[in-house]
């Protein structure tokens, strides 16, 4: 018997199974977009029939970091910007786990930008949800990497001189094989996208627009969203890299002017995940590494038997 019997335990699930039994109650502000992520993730997990115990949700620091406090599964609340390296190693160690990482725009695109780039590049089989509210929330309202140029805050009193990061384009360039943008006010689309992202075999990046009613009242995040996959005005092939890139540019150019496009921007089903590539070249075992430690029949090799010949 597997030591991890929760894995692959498919059943009909109710979204409430992912709500912690007693505490804690979310400490997000009333009207916060983060509730939208939580709701979408619960809906997606239920739809996929995932056992809470086969899921590992890794978060960073900030309001987004509390996601796994309010979502019932295994959780690892790591440190600022570091959810991705922890998450991808857990997935390598036990590929049976459904691994979801989450962070904010500061956490994911700022302090964790290096990890983001490399995790996308390697195309690890996992889902990354970035709560993008264009502000540092938990530290009380500083300019973030996605805040628009000219954004004024206590730490940028003259207005930011920096262009905002373009998360979708960055992700495409870095190598993510599933890239989508959704928004807290678009619950059905958000759930569908997270379902697809989790099912996708490779690195799925979901830029999740989450309004911050407390610190970012100016953000144009309450405007209606246009779903690019449904709208006839935006016909493009999201499996075509250059068309996807063009669409990303379009939305990232106009985002702060009030035109918000959401949907699946890029889907590459052909690119092998990092796990598959590593397996192909013989650098990752066929069966889950973590199972070995519980397998009484597995033969553990000794250094003495295998390596010492060359030292004699």
């Amino acid at each position, binding site marked *: 018997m597997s030591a991890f*019997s929760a894995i692959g335990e498919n059943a009909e699930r109710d979204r409430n199974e992912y709500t912690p039994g007693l505490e804690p109650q979310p400490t997000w502000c009333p009207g916060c977009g983060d509730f939208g992520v939580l709701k979408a993730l619960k809906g997606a997990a239920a739809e996929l029939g995932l056992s*809470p115990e086969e899921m590992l949700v890794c978060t960073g620091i900030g309001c987004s970091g509390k996601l796994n406090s309010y979502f019932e599964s295994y959780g*690892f609340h790591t440190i600022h910007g570091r959810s991705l390296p*922890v998450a991808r190693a857990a997935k390598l160690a036990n590929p049976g*786990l459904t691994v979801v990482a989450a962070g904010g725009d500061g956490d994911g695109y700022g302090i964790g930008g290096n990890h983001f780039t490399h995790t996308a590049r390697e195309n690890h089989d996992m889902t990354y949800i970035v709560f993008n509210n264009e502000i540092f929330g938990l530290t009380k309202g500083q300019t973030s990497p996605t805040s628009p140029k000219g954004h004024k805050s206590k730490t940028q009193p003259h207005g930011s001189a920096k262009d905002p990061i373009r998360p979708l384009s960055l992700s495409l360039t870095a190598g993510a094989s599933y890239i989508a943008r959704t928004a807290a006010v678009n619950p059905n689309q958000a759930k569908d996208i997270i379902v697809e992202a989790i099912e996708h075999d490779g690195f799925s990046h979901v830029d999740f627009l989450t309004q911050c009613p407390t610190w970012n009242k100016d953000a144009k995040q309450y405007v209606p969203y246009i779903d690019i996959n449904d709208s006839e005005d935006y016909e493009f092939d999201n499996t075509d890299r250059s068309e996807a890139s063009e669409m990303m540019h379009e939305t990232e150019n106009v985002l702060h002017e009030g035109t918000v496009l959401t949907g699946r921007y890029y889907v590459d089903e052909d690119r092998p995940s990092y796990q598959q590539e590593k397996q192909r070249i013989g650098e990752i075992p066929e069966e889950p*590494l973590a199972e070995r*430690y519980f397998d009484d029949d597995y033969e553990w090799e000794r250094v003495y038997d295998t390596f010492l010949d060359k030292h004699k």
Partner: protein
Amino acid sequence: MTDDELIWRIAGGSGDGIASTSQNFAKALMRAGLHVFTHRHYPSRIRGGHTYTEVRVSSEPVKSRGDGYNFLLALGDSFARNPQENAYYGNEEVKPLSENLDELDEGGVIVYDSGLLDTDDIPNFDERVEENGWHVYDIDLRTMAREHGREVMRNTAGVAVTCAIAGIEPDVIKSLMEDSMPEKVFEPNMSVFDDAYETVLEEFDADAPDVSVPEGEHEEEQVLISGSDAIAYGALDEGCRFIAGYPMTPWTEVFTIMSQNLPEVGGISEQVEDEIAAAALAVGASHAGVKAMSGSSGGGFALMSEPLGLAEMTETPVVLVEAMRAGPSTGMPTKPEQADLEHVLYTSQGDSHRVVFAPSGAEEAYKQTRRAFQIAYEYQIPSIVLYDQKNGGEMRNVPASVFDEEPNPDLGSVISEAELADAPHDPSGKYNRFQHDVEDGVSPRSLPGQEGGRYLATGNEHMPAGHIAEDPDNRVNQVNRRMQKMEAIRADLDGDEETNTHYGPEEAEYGIMTFGSQQGTAEEAVDRLNDDGHSVKMLGVSELAPYPVEEVTEFIRSVDEVLVVEMNASAQFRGLTQKELGRFGEKLSSLLKYNGNPFEPAEIVDGFVTSIVEDGSLPGHETKFVPAASD
């Protein structure tokens, strides 16, 4: 010059095959029944630049590089030569000769490649040769090698000359070359070997110098192992199947050995974007139920401070190795120092704790790396194997039986699914993974994917089920429990056979204390001091945290004065000892070295005699004496 040991130095340019040639030489002599020890000196560049390796050979066990040396093979730096006309880019043309003369013993041998080196470029060469009674053999090894095939074979020619002069049976070397070379290369190497060997016997007086290789015999089979090999093999035997790292000298050696071997044993190696990621990956893999490690050298380890604290707070077992090199900042990349001790002990915020081992040599490195995993996984705490460029790179013979040990896939304090059914759970349904009152402070962990084991791991202070909390009572309970582990670990380590090293006569007047890579050198110094009529013993501490307070107290109490020998400028180990013991400032003085080279035994002997016995001051600035607080 004595018959009982040869200290052979092969010098040339980086990238000229000095390391591999010396390694084969050492291994051949080990196979012939001798004890060997190698010492590497190399610059921080890829090709060219002065480099040498010493091979000390003796019929008795050797513990250090020794003092000076008695046989120089100067090969020439092929990269300091003019690759194209007017494109000369180095000034190391004569360095393989000029840089090495100061340490050559009286009556020693110089073999140099006259095809590449010109003694006319070295000031007062002939006078120095005469003064020191050196025996000089100028042989055009380069031309000889070219005649037999390739110029790079001048290394083989040089080894053959060594054999002819030092009386080493050629078969000793040849049989090893046969094992280590492809046939195509082996044949021309054999012919250049024979040519060089015969040339010496025919054209020179090979018997002139009084230098020879002793005879010896091992009672059991030996292997030639570096400290880096020993750490990697210890990790593999202890069931480590995941490593993440970023290259940095000298840690790269362990990372490389692991990366080359892990896929063969069904493990995973990840070279990642930076050291923060590397340590975080190790934490992630360990969290998911795999024995994992990471590591770096000083500057890279600085980046690991964050994930190190996360591992402690989330009680995720992880082993980090830290290969010290001279600092601060990037310091001297290829030179050893023991100045990261405080960095490793105290880095990371808050009341954070970790276990620190500092093995002295290859055998201890193997055993303590295994111990580091056992402690980390049993007590759910980060442990660190602290070593340096010296013990990472030096090779020595170790009985093969040391490695004849069973692998250990035990994950330590992990709860099974069956046990989870009866384990305490939070009213919310989560497993109480961080229970307050548990034996030794260790609360068993569940692994993601286990039925009934859901919990939240977090770097924030947390309740038993893992939820973030600032409740004062819970805070105190959790801190106390985490700290309690250190006492339990100390008790566990005290019950070990593998522990700190006591050396020398039990009843001695004086003590020497040291840690890590300097221990073997100190042992040799202690032998010499006692032979000279002094009364000295040594304590080599290789368990630095939790500190062996009782053992060290007893040692210091038993002697009048203690000289603490360490390779840094700020007496960090002495400082740690005083901090942990809270006293003995009046009994501890320091002998320090921080010029980029490890201690030689004679420096400890001289330092001890001059500073402690004669109360005088040290000559020169190779080493530094810092007196006890009362002096």
